[in-house]
């Protein structure tokens, strides 16, 4: 399994043509206390860079974008009851959705962990 990152602070962990998407620890730290998360419906088609999910902190709503194009196979239902999972375990239990990749070539444009860490350090 390989994990990639976007400049919009999403992570995507890829296992064959299946992937899990969430937001990074840096992102949850910037957002602060998460009070609501809306995940995409199973079967919906997401386009790379398009709106995929919504995460709301006390002060604002933010969009989560799709790191790659694909079809949603599962949303994280646990976030409905406990949106604070995004704060406490953003890169684990606080994942947002799973999807099947349409074009694994899109992954080439994403950052690996080292590159993402350097990117965050530059902010």
């Amino acid at each position: 399994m390989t994990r990639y990152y976007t400049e919009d602070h999403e992570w995507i962990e890829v296992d064959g043509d299946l992937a899990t998407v969430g937001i990074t620890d840096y992102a949850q730290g910037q957002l602060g206390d998460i009070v609501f998360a809306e995940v995409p419906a199973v079967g919906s088609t997401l386009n790379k860079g398009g709106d995929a999910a919504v995460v709301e902190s006390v002060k604002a709503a933010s969009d989560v974008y799709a790191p790659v194009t694909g079809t949603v196979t599962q949303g994280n239902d646990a976030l409905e009851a406990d949106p604070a999972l995004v704060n406490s375990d953003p890169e684990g239990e606080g994942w947002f959705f799973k999807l099947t990749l349409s074009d694994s070539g899109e992954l080439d444009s994403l950052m690996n962990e080292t590159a993402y860490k350097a990117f965050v350090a530059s902010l």
Partner: protein
Amino acid sequence: MMSDDEIEQPELPAEELPLGDWHRAHGARMVEFAGYHMPIQYEGIMAEHAWTRENAGLFDVSHMGQLMLSGEHTAEALEAIVPGDISALKEGRMRYSLLLAEDGGILDDLMITAAPMGLYLVVNGAVKWDDISYLRDRLPDEITINHMDDRALLALQGPKAVDALRRVVPGVDALYFMEASSYLWGHEPLWISRSGYTGEDGFEISVPAEHVAAFADALCAQPEVKPIGLGARDSLRLEAGLPLYGHDLDDRIDPVQADLSFAISKRRREEGGFTGAGRILGALAGGAPNKRVGFTVEGRMPVREGAPIFAGDTQIGVMTSGGFAPTIDAPIAMGYVETTYAMHGTALEAEVRGKRVPVKVAAMPFVPHRYHRRGQVIQKGTPA
């Protein structure tokens, strides 16, 4: 991932306030607000919100404008542009009031205190320069307007604010809600009022800018006190049902629409003689077309500023503030609806990202005010 609030671009570079470095040293995340670098949060909005409701939170509100109006007949002159009975204000008493445009629209909401030197005004930071020029235009030349930008302004809010502040500034516990007086901290003059913007008991303290960092340290050395950012200030005031200028109030809205008729004193209703009196007295007599109300929200999804409000297929209003209420553990909102729909309990719908969310008109405040009012029976030792 992109926050809605990252889109706003300031017109001018943000300025530094006296406590800027103090906030950074205390771990604040800074944002630009009202033209200044301000702390949005320290440890987190939820924790800071709860701390203020249970203990005492220290807020830096130095972005607000502190003005001193002095000269002959200042109260009478100010009454031409605000609807309060300012002439009747005794020294050491304060009143919430509204700066009114010619057409009755609200230019700002403000606090007016009768101080020994004159009338002390605290106005909103985002519009203070417009307020000052409006006051200069409208007040007679004999009245001096001193913009006290050499003073910082702190608010200490919460049920334990009095315990903490009286240790640092003995005697402040003698003040009641909406009263103010001068005090000394060492050799430094403080102007302290028992007032605030959270719905809790608390104080607002005007401090010479060069001493505010030391004073803030003295307050934070008290076990009840932690610094609190603008994020919790907003969630606290929303729970208290208090409007925020530029969001819930603006120059298109008159005081009756804003449900702030209490700010129009009895004598002024009878005599008129303030800007916009025609529209405002008309609305008092005949009703306003729409009204500011509070909302409870079904479910967990916050309904925020700008969300349209529907009765069936017809849009009958818009939300002007909204978010998650930590004390209530649910979303709440504030907005304007056509007066027909303003009754408490009216079931309506708001639209968020194309989806309808059930909302219900609710009484405000959402969280009861706990002011230390004069003449109130205090039941010592009784659990709240």
